[in-house]
């Protein structure tokens, strides 16, 4: 087997085994209801994680997405409360703002040659600060259109529901897979992650691609913010603190190499589902405390990093002796 697929295979195997263990203990977990809820509850995280996958594939990191999600939520809530604008128009405005924000960070990273870590850290402060300035209180969203959107779902056999936001996440993942593997932009992202100097010699437009990657991440963080505001029907500037860490963890557990250049968008979906499964299991169990989620995710992270290290070691040796 191609060693490139090994982390992804391992992730899928861990997910299936974990799910089997869960079912063995709680047979009720094998229902379409649980699966539907798994998708709905993790929709905003999944959408943001697609953007993070592209950023990490290119060898960068984006710490701003949690703050951008919160900003989008507050932005929508304030806009819908203060004006009579239709939510769809507000969505478009929010996406424009967050995409431009991401593009700006990409431009700073490229043109000032600064590490993405510190630039997106500044972006995180800025987005969170803007959310605070808009409102420090939680603002409910009572627009009837929100109720309509929340009422949309596709009924699965067995009573489960794929809600609008759950379905949207699956669509975003499908689009992400297409962009990563079937477009020139996707190929450029992989090339950039393989090494900037090499990519430049291959004729990859470094600046345009870098700006595009962070703009995409900003766009998806904005979309994730819209989904989160639909999910909670409110905008709160202290919401989604630390979501960027969950997203990074999902990407790593999904088998994407943190040094960039290797990985799959589909893996991130499985990474999200594993995190969701841990949470669902803890809810089903009832006696375990929620902090076990953090410890287990940390442990999984560690295992996958070790797995990746071992993998690089093996392929390096193969290459050397080939």
């Amino acid at each position, binding site marked *: 087997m191609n060693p490139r697929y090994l982390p992804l295979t391992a992730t899928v195997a861990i997910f299936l085994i974990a799910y089997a263990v869960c079912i063995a203990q709680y047979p009720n977990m094998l229902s379409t209801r649980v699966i539907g809820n798994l998708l709905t509850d993790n929709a905003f995280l999944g959408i943001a994680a697609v953007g993070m996958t592209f950023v990490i594939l290119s060898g960068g990191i984006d710490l701003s997405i949690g703050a951008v999600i919160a900003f989008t939520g507050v932005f929508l809530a304030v806009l819908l409360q203060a004006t009579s604008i239709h939510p769809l128009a507000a969505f478009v405005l929010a996406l424009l703002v967050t995409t431009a924000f991401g593009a700006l960070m990409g431009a700073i990273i490229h*043109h*000032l040659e600064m590490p993405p870590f510190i630039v997106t*850290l500044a972006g995180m402060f800025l987005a969170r600060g803007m959310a605070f300035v808009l409102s420090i209180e939680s603002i409910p969203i009572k627009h009837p259109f929100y109720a309509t959107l929340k009422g949309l779902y596709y009924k699965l056999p067995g009573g489960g529901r794929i809600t609008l936001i759950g379905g949207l996440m699956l669509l975003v993942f499908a689009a992400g897979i297409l962009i990563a593997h079937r477009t020139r932009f996707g190929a450029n992202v992989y090339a950039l992650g393989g090494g900037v100097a090499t990519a430049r010699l291959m004729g990859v437009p470094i600046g345009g691609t870098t700006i595009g990657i962070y703009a995409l991440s900003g766009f998806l963080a904005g979309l994730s913010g819209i989904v989160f505001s639909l999910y909670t029907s409110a905008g709160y500037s202290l919401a989604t603190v630390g979501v960027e860490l969950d997203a990074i963890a999902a990407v790593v557990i999904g088998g994407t190499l943190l040094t960039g250049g290797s990985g799959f968008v589909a893996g991130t979906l499985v990474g999200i589902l594993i995190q969701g499964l841990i949470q669902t299991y803890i809810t089903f169990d009832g006696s375990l405390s929620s902090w076990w989620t953090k410890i287990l*995710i940390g442990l999984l992270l560690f295992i996958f*990093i070790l797995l990746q290290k071992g993998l690089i070691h093996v392929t390096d040796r193969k290459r050397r002796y080939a």
Partner: protein
Amino acid sequence: MSASVKSHAVRLFPQVAALAVILVMVSIAFPGFFRLEMQNGRLYGSLIDILNRGAPVALLAIGMTVVIATKGIDLSVGAVMAICGAVAAACITSGYGLVATLIVTLGTGILCGLWNGILVAVLDIQPIIATLVLMVAGRGIAQLITEGAILTFNDAGLIFIGSGSFLGLPMPVVIWLVFGIVVALLVRRTALGMLIEALGVNRRAAMLSGVSTGVLLIAAYMLSGLCAAIAGIIAAADIRGADANNAGLWLELDAILAVVVGGTSLLGGRFSIAASLLGALIIQSINTGILLSGFPPEFNLIIKAAIIVMILVIQSPRARTAFAFLSRPKAAEETKTEQEAK
């Protein structure tokens, strides 16, 4: 000797100037800013408050400076603070003495650093990812120790560390000042600092020239863990309890920011602990200043972001090239006098 004093002054000038500008601006907005009072043998005033409130970030910045100088980064310090605060509270409430509690807590911090160091040095994992593991899992571990509650204690000795005073200064200030001076002397009066810089500039080259890079790397992360442990004790002693959720939350970012404001490059190499401490004071002055001058605290983060961007622009290779190009004759002169001084 005077040349070294002069070079220090030149190195620290931007930070000192920035701090002075901020303090003057705050004192215009808030006239009583520089007033100091002596009450019950302890100094009170806004300046002392900045020194006191800035203690955790200043302590973290000491360890972070050394880690960043090795071309690493330690994201776990906030979580380690939470773990150590929890350990300290758990030890003292289950009847251990103050000394035993402190030893166990500091040991825990060093152990956390050892874990990070082994991941980075032995398993060769990117520092940002290696320390992410503990950052994610750390708060869970702290929750496990406190069993989900906020563990409160009322041991006079432990509380003294957070709110006592020594020679008129609050204990936290004394601790970070002394610790900072000790570490700075340790790295600058021995060859350690130079070896760390060599490691940060080029690990392979340093290894080939005989620097035991593995040991140094692990030691750097252990120092960072120790700093986080001390900061964790101070934070817990200050509120007389261990809060696993909020102790040290986002302080890793403030500590990194302090180091960057202090002018140490994230790409490793030359570092200055004094400059990082000044950076921590600058951040705390901004925080306190915004509060005192009656600005809505909501603007705090935006101002911070603006300052980071400004510093990034000044530090960026492109801006430096442009600057060097504009002031070429002067720059050439400076290098000449520098050479003469040597």
